């Protein structure tokens, strides 16, 4: 099973190395990771997706807690939460195929953000299923390049993941 962890860290030099290094030396795999600011200055939030059993994820969380710069770790997969990822795809788009591509993009509520004589850049946000679905459809036209932000996630409702 995939687990999405929200990790609040002190925004200090080397903190990403500490977290990434912990995963590699303990033999845990990071599926993806996204890092950014929070509402509190000096504190960053990492969203880490890790695949594994309950026992493994429990051990990942405990080991993360041992890092001095890690303030809080929550497993968002255990609770109702909103999960999103942003993906940009550069797709072959000859004049003849553009309207077909446009249609697919609209169905997935994506956006065409750049057009050149023979290609388009498409922006799409959503969960993993949606990403995989649009990728599959666009493969038909030839995907030249993909870039993804990694998943980010917030708890549903008014509850928040805070450092306290």
């Amino acid at each position: 099973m995939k687990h999405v962890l929200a990790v609040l860290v002190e925004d200090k030099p080397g903190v990403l190395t500490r977290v990434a290094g912990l995963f590699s030396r303990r033999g845990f795999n990071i599926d993806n990771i996204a890092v950014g600011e929070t509402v509190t200055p000096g504190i960053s939030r990492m969203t880490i997706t890790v695949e594994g059993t309950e026992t493994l994820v429990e051990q990942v969380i405990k080991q993360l807690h041992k890092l001095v710069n890690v303030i809080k770790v929550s497993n968002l997969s255990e609770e109702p939460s909103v999960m999103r990822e942003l993906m940009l795809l550069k797709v072959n788009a000859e004049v003849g195929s553009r309207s077909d591509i446009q249609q697919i993009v609209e169905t997935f509520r994506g956006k065409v953000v750049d057009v050149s004589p023979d290609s388009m850049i498409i922006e799409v946000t959503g969960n993993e299923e949606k990403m995989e679905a649009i990728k599959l459809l666009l493969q038909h036209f030839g995907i030249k390049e993909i870039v993804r932000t990694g998943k980010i996630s917030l708890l549903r409702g008014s509850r928040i993941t805070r450092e306290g």
Partner: protein
Amino acid sequence: MLMKKKMIKGSAMIISALQKEGVEIVFGYPGGAVLPLYDQLYDSTLRHLLVRHEQAAAHAADGYARVTGKPGVVFATSGPGATNLVTGIANAYMDSVPLVLITGQVPSGFIGTDAFQEADITGITLPVTKHNYLVKDARQLPGILSEAFYLASTGRRGPVLIDVPKDVFDQEAHFDYNVECEIPGYNPTYKGHAGQISRAVKAIRDAKRPVIFGGGGLIRSGASAALEELAERAKIPVILSLMGLGAYPGDRSLFLGMPGMHGSITANYALSEADLIIATGVRFDDRVTGKLESFASNARIIHIDIDPAEIGKNVKIDVPIVGDVKMVLESILKKLQFGDTAEWLKQIENWQKQNPMPGGLKSSGSAMKPQHVIREISRLCDENTIVATDVGQHQMWTAQHFMVRKPCSFLTSGGLGTMGYGFPASIGAKLAAPDQKVVCITGDGSFQMNIQELATAVNNHLDLTIAIINNGYLGMVRQWQDIFYDKRYAHTLMEGNPDFVKLAEAYGAKGMRACDAKEATAAIEQAMQEKGPVVIDFTVEPEENVYPMVAPNRPINDIIIGGDRS
């Protein structure tokens, strides 16, 4: 009018912080990048022990820390100075020993340019320190220093490294030192959860075949008295891991010895047959558990540990209690209830009678038995003696045959298994406890890994007995070749060993040789009376193996008994 605060140099801040933290001695080795700190040290009242290799500084500080419970402090220079510390840091990390290590670094402007003697020591030590710092500005120093001491000596202890660029030593800033500090992501739990403690009390009450299995956590938290009370009030036998030896007196009848690969047969049987294991300050290392699937399959397990990540890491736990071992045991004692263990103790007594430790008797043939030498040293030492070992056969024989009665008096590299640890650790121990006898039991292989420290010991007039259990082999590796590799002794014969007696004399130490039991006794007796370091080279049976033995990844009750049990 505003008071103008005095500005002081970064190097002066470090010395001043060490004094405020109660540091008495620094173990170290100077060099280019750390020169400003040594210049500052020159005028201070702090004692400095000059070693002959930085690794020995880390091990000596480790030995000092294990005896005193206080963080051991180390200075070294950038690049090779810092990288030479790495083994000592990893060793302390694995055994949860508090160290604060301060390394010089190339000047800030040169970092990242592959400057002379530059090494990314914070990067290198990331996986083997509890935490580390690269100081960018002297204004950060007071905060970082107090955090480093706080982190090293609280929670699960461990080494903390501070890397200081040369220009930061010379940079001036205000110095306002506060020993108390707060770190948002660091809040160790000391007091056990009341609900879990009640569950533990019930489990102890209901157990018919309980056993206490204790480790290094007992020693670090000072839990010996609580452990003794629990064992003796509830009549529960005690098993101690290698790291736990000394936490419970080795001569008590409830003590069953060490478990695991070279543990006592009784300890392994007891763990396998117990219906309750009270695990205190242990981490279920593979050398203890053997094959995990069959470990303690009949038992419920209570696990008390300061580090939540250790609970459930290797073994499934029924009653997890995160907290300081001493505090948790004291809480359990307040509500202690217990059943009748008489039948269980009788069973254990039978195992003990049927399975004495092999190799305990004097050898009849020409070659002396190594176990005999260790028993003899043990017999001739008083109960306050501190023993430090290196790593290998002699280490296991010491764990089996040396009578350790008190906590903080058995120093050994348990987790990392570092050959070369013992001798420098014994130097640190002697400085920590000048009034106690200190003995280093080592092998001919291990001793040569830090033999240069004879100069340090001689120069500082340290009364140390260094006992080399000399079998002319890397004995433990040879034993594995004997058992698992068809006696193909690839590169384990230590051809070209020096004459250790002459070598000791060349350093200005006393050297002795003992080839039989009579000479051994005489040499040990004489060494105890001598001033300064004494090296005794005990020539022992070259191909003696350590038994009992459990092959790796076998159940711990599947024991190769072996050895001469006459």
